[in-house]
């Protein structure tokens, strides 16, 4: 089981806990947060309650959170329908190894028991923090405490904190990756190997992303698409053949067949489905990174909404065409990163609600609406050439390496568009100044 939180929340938690290591190294510090369960494998920390001096008592040989402090967090969480609480506390003298103390092992079950008396069915997490190590456990309903594996901090980068209690040295990677270690070190490679990455869309861009991520060392890929291979896909769909067209094979099956023949030791799972179907979307609960390779606005909206709601890092990419009259005006490869606390695709004007309306109409009805002057470009075929898809996929794969081991010079918002017609790279702007986004609530006052 893992925990996920945002960089904004983690910075606040870290500031409190670091007091134990920056100041007098005998004082334990702690903080309480609220957790929400997502699927069977993930807990989200969305909210924290900053402690005051009187909320933390150390007079009995270990840190005790005051009853009013716990009560404050518990009442809020219970009212909001959350799953439980997370308790962080420090062991100031622990450095590269940390474990729960005898005091923790005796006091914590009593605390959990008390909490469950007033909040039946709640599930709680405890994390003990040393200077360079973390250990975590979760009290699930009716079960003994279970160890937690990792804490993902999602922001402008992805930070992965091991909860095993020691500073983990990553294993030596396979020599296959020797020539990539300057850009992706052993630690970053281990993160890529362990992360569960979902690629939504197995078309011209999605199939390239599977290939690039596999060769970057990503160990657990999930590919989702419900399309079959058509003859017009053969100019850009890796590993697809005319037999796949004749047999009406699914695009995901083609990718799986190629993966099975590959010598790299990665897993590829496939789902023949669409993320606009709630049961398919639900399967993304245990995913650590979403990659959108889709050319329709409604599934993009659904993914964006899911990422925003559940603190998921989401890389959206695509090729885009601009036409004025009969003339091709622009050919762009775009990559956009959505993370908690940053602007989402809606803020950036990358989701067109008029298109979503028209996408939801049956063909005849849609044509009637287009005839009335609505959204003329919806039926324009998107660019479908491999070279352009490769520009976007290449940027996105490099950017994913950057997320786990930052190397890009430029900070700031993570999205850009390469114009092939002008051979320039530009940033994607926000929709309009001084607005609050209806999807993510992001407030921005610049363009």
């Amino acid at each position, binding site marked *: 089981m893992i925990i996920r939180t945002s960089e904004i929340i983690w910075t606040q938690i870290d500031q409190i806990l670091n007091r134990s290591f920056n100041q007098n190294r005998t004082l334990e510090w702690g903080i309480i947060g609220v957790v929400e369960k997502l699927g069977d494998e993930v807990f989200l920390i969305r909210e924290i309650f900053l402690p005051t001096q009187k909320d933390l008592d150390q007079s009995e040989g270990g840190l005790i959170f005051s009853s009013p402090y716990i009560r404050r967090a518990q009442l809020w969480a219970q009212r909001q329908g959350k799953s439980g609480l997370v308790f962080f506390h420090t062991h100031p003298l622990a450095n590269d190894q940390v474990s729960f103390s005898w005091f923790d092992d005796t006091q914590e079950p009593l605390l959990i028991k008390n909490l469950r008396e007033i909040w039946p069915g709640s599930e709680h997490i405890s994390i003990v923090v040393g200077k360079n190590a973390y250990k975590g456990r979760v009290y699930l309903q009716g079960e003994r405490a279970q160890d937690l594996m990792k804490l993902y901090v999602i922001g402008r980068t992805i930070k992965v904190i091991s909860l095993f209690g020691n500073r983990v040295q990553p294993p030596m990677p396979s020599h296959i990756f020797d020539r990539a270690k300057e850009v992706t070190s052993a630690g970053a490679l281990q993160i890529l190997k362990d992360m569960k990455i979902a690629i939504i869309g197995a078309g011209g861009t999605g199939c390239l992303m599977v290939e690039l991520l596999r060769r970057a060392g990503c160990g657990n890929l999930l590919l989702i698409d419900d399309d079959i291979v058509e003859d017009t896909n053969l100019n850009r769909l890796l590993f697809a053949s005319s037999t796949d067209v004749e047999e009406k094979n699914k695009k995901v099956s083609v990718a799986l067949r190629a993966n099975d023949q590959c010598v790299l030791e990665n897993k590829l799972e496939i789902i023949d489905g669409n993320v*606009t179907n709630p049961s398919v979307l639900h399967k993304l609960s245990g995913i650590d990174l979403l990659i959108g390779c889709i050319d329709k606005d*409604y599934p993009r909206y659904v993914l964006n909404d899911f990422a925003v709601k559940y603190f998921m890092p989401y890389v959206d990419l695509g090729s885009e065409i601009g036409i004025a009259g009969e003339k091709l005006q622009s050919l762009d490869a775009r990559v956009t990163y959505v993370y908690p606390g940053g602007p989402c695709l809606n803020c950036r004007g990358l989701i067109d609600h008029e298109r*979503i309306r*028209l996408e*939801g*109409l*049956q063909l005849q*009805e849609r044509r*009637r*609406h287009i005839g009335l002057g609505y959204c003329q470009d919806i039926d324009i075929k998107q660019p479908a050439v491999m070279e352009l898809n490769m520009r976007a996929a290449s940027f996105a794969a490099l950017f994913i390496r950057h997320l786990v081991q930052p190397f890009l010079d430029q900070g700031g918002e993570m999205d850009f568009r390469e114009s092939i017609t002008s051979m320039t790279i530009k940033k994607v702007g926000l929709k309009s100044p001084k607005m609050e986004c209806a999807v993510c609530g992001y407030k921005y006052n610049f363009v």
Partner: protein
Amino acid sequence: MEQTLMLKQLSEAVAGGFNACDRMENGQLYMLVNGVPTLNKDWTIATVDMLISVPNTYPVGGLDAFYIDSALMLHNGQKHPRVQPAPNILGKSWGVVSWHYNKPWSFSDTFLTHIYHCQDFLRKGSRSN
């Protein structure tokens, strides 16, 4: 769209005094509203049937435009210039009206608010443009 949301919004439209129900043709969902008051003496009839196509991406994909019974005429014997010919749907002849919102569709908009929006076209009679 979710069945529960559709039922909720249809019920709200009925509670708002409109004879609204759902209909399906060729996989396309419609809301049929019978006997909508035309609210303006410019029209030759006092009530009219209205048909609204509902995208399966609703409510993210909002409602826009509507069909109106082709019998709707102005007293000058003309059809309203905003009413364009449309094919038969649900076995009935319609005209289609492109009647845009001034603001983007929002989650506070519903079937009922869209009927009000469409009825605004009728209320303005020959002045609708």
